[in-house]
């Protein structure tokens, strides 16, 4: 039973971390699940107290299940550091992908004298973009300059990563 509970806790935490990847919603979900876990724990404790008063000392199946569920839910905050790590990896992947794109844009400018009007031709097939890249809001150019930007959409929502070809630097705000 302990092994099953531990495995369930890991699965739930992993599911939360991979589903939300450190986004604000993960904190919300964890807070809600922890609260639920506390409530379930209270119910499990009450069940145990009632059985003891009745003189039935053997742990019931329901009480065991409730105790395990409470433990799994209360351990859901373990998913947060994992989610944040995944988020950092997502940001790094997006930044690296953008840096590669910027290199190709500079090559295009050396070749044609202008930056391309859009980057549709430089994008990988749909579904293979880094997680944080939104191709609709990625790139703006007037031919002589460009801006590449993506949102982090994480616990510090609205954090923006922006590269200006004129300033030749990334800014995060």
């Amino acid at each position, binding site marked *: 039973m302990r092994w099953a509970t531990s495995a369930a806790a890991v699965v739930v935490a992993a599911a939360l971390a991979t589903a939300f990847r450190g986004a604000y919603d993960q904190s919300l979900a964890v807070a809600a699940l922890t609260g639920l876990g506390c409530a379930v724990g209270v119910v499990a404790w009450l069940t145990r107290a009632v059985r003891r008063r009745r003189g039935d000392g053997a742990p019931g199946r329901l009480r065991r299940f409730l105790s395990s569920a409470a433990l799994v839910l209360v351990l859901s905050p373990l998913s947060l550091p994992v989610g944040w790590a995944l988020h950092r990896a997502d940001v790094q992947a997006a930044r690296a992908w953008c840096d590669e794109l910027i290199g190709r844009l500079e090559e295009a400018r050396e070749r044609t004298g202008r930056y391309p009007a859009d980057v549709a031709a430089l994008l990988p097939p749909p579904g293979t973009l880094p997680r944080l890249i939104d191709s609709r809001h990625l790139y703006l150019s007037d031919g002589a300059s*460009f801006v590449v930007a993506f*949102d982090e959409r994480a616990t510090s929502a609205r954090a923006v990563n922006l590269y200006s070809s004129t300033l030749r630097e990334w800014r995060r705000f």
Partner: protein
Amino acid sequence: MFVDAREIPAQSVLDADVCIVGAGAAGIACAREFLGTPHRVVVLESGGLEFHGDTQALYRGRLTGRPYFPLDASRLRYFGGTTNHWAGNCRALEPIDFEPREWLPHSGWPISHGDVAPYYDRAYAVCQAGPFRHQLDAWRLPNARPLRFLDDEVLTRVTQFSPPTRFGLAYRDELQQAPNVTTYLHANLAGIDVTAAANAVEAVRVRCLPGNEFSVRARAFVLACGALENARLLLASNHVQQAGLGNGTDMVGRCFMEHLTLEAGVFVPADADLSAMDLYEIPDRRLRAGHWETPWRTKAYWALSPAAQRADRVSNTTATVSRVYAPPSYSGPGYQSVRALMGAIRAGSFSGLSRHLRKIAEDWSGVMGTMHWKASGLGGEAPVRLYSLRLQFEQAPNPQSRVRLGAERDALGLPRVELDWRLSDVDRHTAITAARRLALAVGRAGLGRIKLTLDPEDPLGSMQGAWHHVGTTRMGADPKSSVVDANLAVHGIRNLFVAGSSVFPTAGHSVPTATIVALALRLADHLKKTVAGQPVGSGRAQ
């Protein structure tokens, strides 16, 4: 003095030097210029001193083109005219607004910015908007740190605010006490009588709602009734010229324009110190209280530079930002505890855990409301860092966008107006291109990020007008493409003049009131020079 026109005996004929039809911004500004002069002025105002439903109903009309505001809601028909619900924004037009721009069909005024500029000082005084200082540097601002764009492709400009002046209230006493200016209230223009050759106006016919009718003869007549009504009155005065006065080339009513306004995106400033935004985004409360060290109220906005307009072949475009406010629950105890708790957990501390949890439990609905707001995409770690970006640009002149006479008639027996408002590809191009230019300029300079929300397939889908009626009796040197000349005289009719935004050949980048008043003052100067010494009804004003 004021006279109730309903008490004028029927078939009376009144004489004056100048007859001004309409007592709104243009009519009152023009009439005031004659105070203390030897000229006798008659002002005809359809309404009374207060709003009345029966008179306002004369403004009803039909929309046959794009959806628009109800025609009896976007203007007011009583003494003071539409200034009675004016917001008070005063901006002068820029030199490029007057220039012909080859990418903007039918653009170009027959006068230059230099011809109007001397009148802006006086116009701002009439509008009580403070001294006319259009440049940012002229104002002493406590947080004067305009965002610096690279290459000056986007400029910071200043709007000056009138209190706003209700012309009917502000100038009522002056006009009431003036011995040479008589304002007839409840006096509706029913027709314009011209000579057989239709080259001069002999008199205008006035009709009151109770039914009495009289005439006014004058040396010069000024229509100052707004862009919809000026065109309607010319078209309806069709006894001699069957297509309507001044409409020999079918230009009366054409090129109706608006300032096109749309939410283009969200602006996230890069600088955590938001004091610079105090220039651009001033809550109404502070505006009312007087934001600046001066007694005058101002607000900054962005404007595409003339060079950027030329490069992108777009209409003159401005942008304003307004703060995206958080819901009240954002600052509630529950959500603030969520924030504090998250910060503490991240820092590895659990101090105050029970206190925060208790507050969250107590304010759970507030927490959920804030979460919902954040999930909708508007929220952030600091809500005041988000601003919505609103574009406003001049609609390109479009002859198919026009005012016509409808089949239905109003209580005076005049045909009601029909508005067929249409946009063009230039407008769609401007919406997309100007928004992208602004977003690029902001990002390129590292000032922040504008995330555009315009639909590229239908950029004008959420567009609205700005309650600015422009065009319909456009000014120009060529009668084939215009209705009035550079002196605002109707082509071919020597003594009939038009005042107001109906004469604008292009709408310009900004709110029209200051320019309406400036042009009215210029017209008054012209009339003072030309009407002197000419007999009433001769129609010889040049």
